[in-house]
């Protein structure tokens, strides 16, 4: 049923709609935080997730799902995380639009080639779970030069993110770390957090590689 022409039409509809949604998200993120703002953000990210899923853009779908989950919680602390994910999604969609424009110039390119190429690029740039990795890396890198109270606050943010994403065992481990934070120096706390993440089954060596690359 999905003819080549139909897939191309769908892809065009997606890029148009996604661009509009990103504009709306950008405006909403600048508004004062309230339950209405959170609800609007939830709705926009939810729409993005749905349309990205239709075209099987897995990383984009996952990123939008993470944002949707955070926004639905309604907590103001999610704002900076939502901004971060929004920037990731914007970059991804810009890549899709660029690819679409570039490939449209070749009359031999069919819709499957377009979609495969986008998916290949998407997976080479960002592997599965890397949005979550980025979120945690951002907090780890922000540890540098921060006092222990700010570090604990940062870990608490990660605990809430882990809770929302239902990674409960990580949430428990991170909570233990916060309780024991007074026993560590700032460097030790950062090191322990990193150890917790790289020994966790959802993160592991993939996360370590990602973190080291980001640190360079």
């Amino acid at each position: 049923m999905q003819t080549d022409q139909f897939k191309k039409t769908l892809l065009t509809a997606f890029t148009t709609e996604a661009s509009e949604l990103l504009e709306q998200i950008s405006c909403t993120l600048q508004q004062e935080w309230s339950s209405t703002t959170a609800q609007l953000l939830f709705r926009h990210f939810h729409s993005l997730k749905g349309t990205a899923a239709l075209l099987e853009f897995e990383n984009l779908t996952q990123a939008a799902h993470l944002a949707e989950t955070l926004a639905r919680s309604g907590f103001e602390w999610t704002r900076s995380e939502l901004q971060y994910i929004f920037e990731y999604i914007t970059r991804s969609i810009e890549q899709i639009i660029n690819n679409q424009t570039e490939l449209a110039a070749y009359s031999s390119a069919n819709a499957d080639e377009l979609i495969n190429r986008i998916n290949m690029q998407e997976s080479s740039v960002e592997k599965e779970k890397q949005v979550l990795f980025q979120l945690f890396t951002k907090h780890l890198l922000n540890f540098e030069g921060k006092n222990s109270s700010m570090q604990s606050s940062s870990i608490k943010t990660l605990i809430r993110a882990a809770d929302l994403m239902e990674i409960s065992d990580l949430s428990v481990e991170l909570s233990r770390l916060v309780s024991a934070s007074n026993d560590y120096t700032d460097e030790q706390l950062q090191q322990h957090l990193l150890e917790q993440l790289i020994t966790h089954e959802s993160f592991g060596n993939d996360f370590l590689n990602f973190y080291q690359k980001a640190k360079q």
Partner: protein
Amino acid sequence: MNQLQVLIVDDSPTAALFLQAKLEAAAENLATLAITRAKTGEEALIAANETHFDLAILDVVLPGIDGFSVCQTLKTKQQSRVVALLTALQSESDKKKGSDAGCDVYIIKPINEATLSSVLKLAYIKAQSIGVR
């Protein structure tokens, strides 16, 4: 061939386009479809005042009036024989809201072609059973 009046309510043009294509493919050899599309709950209710639908497929998360409320109105006013909610919301509380709103089918995204085909057949049988069209 019989004709079914179908209402698609989704604020996403991409999703509506996709769903329409899936429905038309599933309806092949069964019935022709007269499809009305609405982007908001308000638009859906206006359309339902003008046309009696055999099948309404509603997204839940919509700007303004949500899919649950639209569903409830369509069922209360008997403006559609079959109402299906099509959503990514899959918690038990959301499903209960759908059931409380009187939906006939609660479909979790992504769209399953077999389910869509069954829903279409359900609408077809209901339309046939009262001898309309």
